[in-house]
């Protein structure tokens, strides 16, 4: 086995932490800022050890001011630094929306590249861990409609490393969304060495011929389990992990949907205006004629993300994905 093939089993959280360490070591322009990212190492420990290793100048505990955190990242980038921002929970990116959508996403465009927003914004989100309000909401579709932002949503620890590395090195702004349930709930083999997964390349995590389940982030985990259990029922289900929704790997979607003729899109977000709609619209554009049945979508409901006791009803689970697949198979 070669050096470069060495791997370690890590949780997604460990993979993220390791990546932050190695990117800060590799490029001294990288600075980390956010609430409780320093001494405390982040409320989930994603930034653990950074302040000890890289010091208070490069790892900064900010006041509780999401807009100023995102907004000052614009200035840091103008100064030639590479800010990696943590928003403590994605729901609080709303406080910074005018900076993220109104400024960061447009900086390159409005200045015709005089200023370059090499900014990564990391934020946890997603259900299943009974958090208080605004901690679990899946807002990716709202960001996807904002041109100028890349949106990356890994589903494995290895991808978390490979995609976060690419995100930090990417000259464009990247929203890097980390599933709360995956922090400790997802573990897999992560290359020890420098590991880059290019942004915008979906991953066909399971091949299949009858139907494809398309998803991203933690829902890929559930989709894989469903796809495996379907084997026993004689249904050959592929699973496509989008990895990033912007850029969207239209080619990968088209190829596998054309192959299978049937598709189910799974998201945690509310149904109306969720990113699943965009996938369906894309399929309609690109491979309508190969569809043997309407594309199914499995989503959260069109209500605010609910309190803990209702969470299990809200977040798509294996049962809901499974029955959507069966229904799709019966259709047409």
């Amino acid at each position, binding site marked *: 086995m070669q050096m470069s093939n060495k791997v370690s089993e890590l949780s997604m959280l460990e993979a993220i932490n390791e990546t932050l360490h190695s990117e800060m070591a590799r490029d001294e322009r990288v600075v980390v800022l956010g*609430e*409780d990212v*320093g*001494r*405390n*190492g982040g*409320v989930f420990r994603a930034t653990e050890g950074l302040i000890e290793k890289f010091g208070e100048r490069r790892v900064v*505990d*900010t*006041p*509780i*001011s*999401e*807009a*100023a955190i995102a907004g000052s990242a614009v200035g840091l980038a103008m100064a030639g630094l590479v800010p990696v921002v943590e928003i403590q929970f994605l*729901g*609080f990116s709303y*406080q910074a929306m005018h900076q993220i959508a109104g400024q960061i996403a447009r900086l390159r465009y409005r200045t015709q590249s005089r200023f370059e927003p090499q900014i990564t914004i990391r934020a946890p989100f997603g259900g299943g861990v*009974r*958090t*208080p*309000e*605004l*901690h679990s909401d899946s807002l990716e579709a709202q960001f996807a409609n904002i041109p100028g932002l890349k949106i990356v949503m890994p589903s494995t620890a290895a991808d978390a490393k490979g995609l976060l590395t690419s995100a930090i090195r990417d000259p464009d702004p990247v929203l890097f969304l980390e599933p709360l349930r995956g922090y400790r709930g997802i573990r897999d083999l992560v290359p020890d060495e420098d590991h880059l997964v290019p942004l915008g390349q979906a991953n066909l995590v399971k091949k299949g011929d009858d139907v494809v389940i398309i998803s991203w982030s933690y829902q890929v985990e559930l989709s894989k389990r469903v796809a495996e259990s379907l084997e026993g029922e004689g249904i050959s289900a592929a699973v496509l992990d989008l990895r990033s929704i912007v850029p969207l790997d239209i080619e990968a979607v088209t190829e596998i949907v054309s192959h299978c003729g049937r598709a189910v899109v799974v998201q945690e977000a509310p*149904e*109306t205006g969720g990113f699943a709609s965009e996938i369906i619209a894309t399929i309609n554009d690109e491979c309508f004629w190969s569809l043997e049945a309407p594309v199914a979508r499995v989503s959260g*409901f*069109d*209500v*605010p993300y*609910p*309190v*803990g*006791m*209702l*969470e299990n*009803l*809200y977040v798509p689970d294996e*049962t*809901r994905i499974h*029955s959507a697949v069966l229904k799709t198979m019966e259709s047409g």
Partner: protein
Amino acid sequence: MPKPDDKQLQMILEDMVIARTQAGRLWNLQRQGQVGTIAPIDGHEAAIVGAVHALETESDWVLPQYREPLGLRRYGAEVLDTFMLYNLGHPAGGHIPEPIKVAPSQISLGASIPHAVGLAWGMSLKDEPGVVLVFFGDGASSEGDFYEAGNLAGVLKAPVILFCINNQWAISTPTHLQTAADSFSSKAEAFGIPGVTVDGNDPAAVYEAVFNARKRATSGKGPTLIEATVYRLGAHTTADDPTRYVPSDDLSAAQEKDPVHTLTQDLKNRNLWNDTKQNEVETAALERLDEAFERAKNTPLLPNSLMDHCFVSDTSRQLRQRSMLMDSMGNANE
């Protein structure tokens, strides 16, 4: 009479002891996995209870952050009952019943401050008596919402009390990283309103400050920013490990000034409190908490709860989602 009299001090201590006692039990319930994340009140009792005792519960609103509910007993038993539902993650935990003028906990830091200003403004537009007191932390004071709302309140002369509990920490962030201002109350300068800092371990001082701010507000003179300085004696929440960042010397020093102990000692010295009373209050507090907990656990979770109360009536898509949900729950029950 801005100072609380002895009778009031006894009632204040009683509420403080109850809050402290119930917080302990709640912490244990969380550790047993029986309730969700808890933000302990320890160290904040005098500030919260002292403030609330200077309000008129019939006319004055309280908008809490999230650490206050156990200290709001004066507003009625329903506050605790609802809080226990909230701690279970029950949807009814967000509905404190009429006519209690208390809003549910606010997780989004600072977000309640403009609500408080709007509510106070609305009350004055309707010539209703009363004021609004909104609680928020030193950390929350860094949010744009605090500043925008404080500035708006100043312009409107809204009858609102901006009550900042400076417990020295915002999770792991100490106040010197939160602001370079001399004090949190000095931020009032930016709004053209009075700002006062009081010792939040001294319930009488807090009472007095709120009493005066209330008087100012109800006489049309507008808002006041009060900073009550305390020390967070516990963890940020049950999910936090403060030993990572709280210097143990600071904590010990703060424990010396524990507001519950201080007032207990004071009233004991003046024969206004004794161990029997203490035991009675503690026992009753635990019984009351357990009762509220049992009641909460037995509050049925209506299957409709997930879809109800988004809009007054469902959109057609929500109707379809609702029936899909009912079907799948029906299946699950078979």
